[in-house]
């Protein structure tokens, strides 16, 4: 009897706890285990392939099992070779990204802020955008040589267009109603840009920069394909020429990690600027 009663007390207490809405802090602390669901498929495939190769069901020469890929990655890291490649690639992406992003922001702002300037600039830039960026490679090599300058230039071109389009579009889509608030308080053109236009375009500018950065990583591979002695792209080409698929896959994994890391860093750095946004992002 008594046991029954206590268990009743327990369950009602638990029931009350479950009924009470969890506080925000609790919600944030609670780890959502469903995140792990996403890892299930790639890990299962990797384990199956590993097992298939171990038990002799597959050769694994062209598609190496995960253990061999990580061994390749590990040996590259141990000799320090990996870090030279990673730094070289990162340096190229960063320089190209900064040049492309800055010019993209400047031209985007010019084109977004004035009708006349837009009519002057935009058609030319749109025409240039229609050219596949890789098509510039031969010209860049002729102009800038086969070393760093041509590679950085290609990455900068790749970064420029999404940033330009994003910034110009963001400025054009700023809410007229908010601009009118600035007019009512008689803000000068400069003040209007600083106090209303700039903050209003920031969220879209961040998105433009992120897609620019993504393209930067795409173009660094293209740039390193066209003749490099260092960099993750070189590891890819080298792996192909030497018949080392494990090295190719190791470089691909390194690219994936670097790209994700750089993107997260950009999001983290720009987060304080767009904290005010009323979007679902924080709840997702």
């Amino acid at each position: 009897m008594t046991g029954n009663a206590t268990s009743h007390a327990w369950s009602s207490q638990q029931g009350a706890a479950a009924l009470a809405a969890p506080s925000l802090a609790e919600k944030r602390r609670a780890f959502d285990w469903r995140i792990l669901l996403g890892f299930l498929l790639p890990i299962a495939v990797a384990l199956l392939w590993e097992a298939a190769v171990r038990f002799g069901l597959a050769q694994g020469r062209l598609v190496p099992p995960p253990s061999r890929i990580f061994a390749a990655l590990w040996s590259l890291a141990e000799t320090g070779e990996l870090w030279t490649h990673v730094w070289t690639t990162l340096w190229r992406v960063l320089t190209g990204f900064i040049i492309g992003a800055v010019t993209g922001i400047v031209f985007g702002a010019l084109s977004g802020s004035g009708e006349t300037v837009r009519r002057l600039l935009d058609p030319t830039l749109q025409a240039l955008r229609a050219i596949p960026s890789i098509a510039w490679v031969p010209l860049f090599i002729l102009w800038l040589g086969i070393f760093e300058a041509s590679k950085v230039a290609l990455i900068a071109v790749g970064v420029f267009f999404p940033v330009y389009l994003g910034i110009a579009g963001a400025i054009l889509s700023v809410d007229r109603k908010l601009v009118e608030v600035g007019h009512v308080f008689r803000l000068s053109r400069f003040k209007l840009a600083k106090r209303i236009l700039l903050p209003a375009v920031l969220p879209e500018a961040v998105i433009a920069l992120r897609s620019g950065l993504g393209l930067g990583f795409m173009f660094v591979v293209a740039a390193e394909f066209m003749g490099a002695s260092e960099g993750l792209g070189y590891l890819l080409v080298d792996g192909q020429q030497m018949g080392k698929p494990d090295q190719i896959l190791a470089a691909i994994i390194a690219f994936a990690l670097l790209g994700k890391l750089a993107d997260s860093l950009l999001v983290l750095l720009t987060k304080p600027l767009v904290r005010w946004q009323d979007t679902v992002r924080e709840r997702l």
Partner: protein
Amino acid sequence: MLELEHLSKTYADGTRALSDINLSVRQAEIVSLIGGSGCGKTTLLRLIAGLDRSSAGAIRLDGELLSGPHPSVGIVFQEPRLLPWLSVFENIAFGLEHLGANERKARVEHALDKIGLSEHAKRWPRDLSGGQQQRVAIARAFVTNPTVLLLDEPFSALDAFTRASLHEHLLGLWEETRPTVVLVTHDVQEAVTLADRAVVMQPKPGRIFDELSLTLSRPRDKTGLAFENSVRRVLTALDHSLNPSQQQPQRERDRQAAALWW
């Protein structure tokens, strides 16, 4: 004294939004512009605010010709139009950049106190309800101490309870500096609650149909007979404004009837 002289507005496509508006509003008077949709109420307000240019006519404030936004003219829009990246405090302080930090802080805090949102000073606009946001917008217009305050249907999107409480907040702020107020509304109750004078407008082209003075003592008792009668008078005038065939005799009779009521 705010004077509108022969004010007209014709849009580029030939639409005549306003034609020959003549109106003068005394210092500290609350005038409500009332009329059906499309009769140019908002256009008139935007002309006074300097957001649009008139096609003909002049707007004078204490004799000074207005051409463009003026520091003594404040406006509250139909939507709050708060800047989402500024806190409530910074939003109210938006027009006070020229003041010293202490003066700015004092004015904003006083306004926050008046609208009852002191504890929300640091929050983002997105965290506020629609009524709270509109209170912030009203405070933003009031802190610059305008001599003319323009209100463009600022309460139209709110429910009746919120609207009634905002009327009180508005009158509370108005009492302090007693600016001239031009209130655009399509709500007769609202016009009678707030205004000293109702200006009934007529569409196509937008023009003034009639003016009715609402000389009820403040604070106004919304359940009293005098209030009811005023509402009826404005409604009658509105009815006639939309029914132009019999406008002239009706208008005269309405005047007489109004005189009898008092």
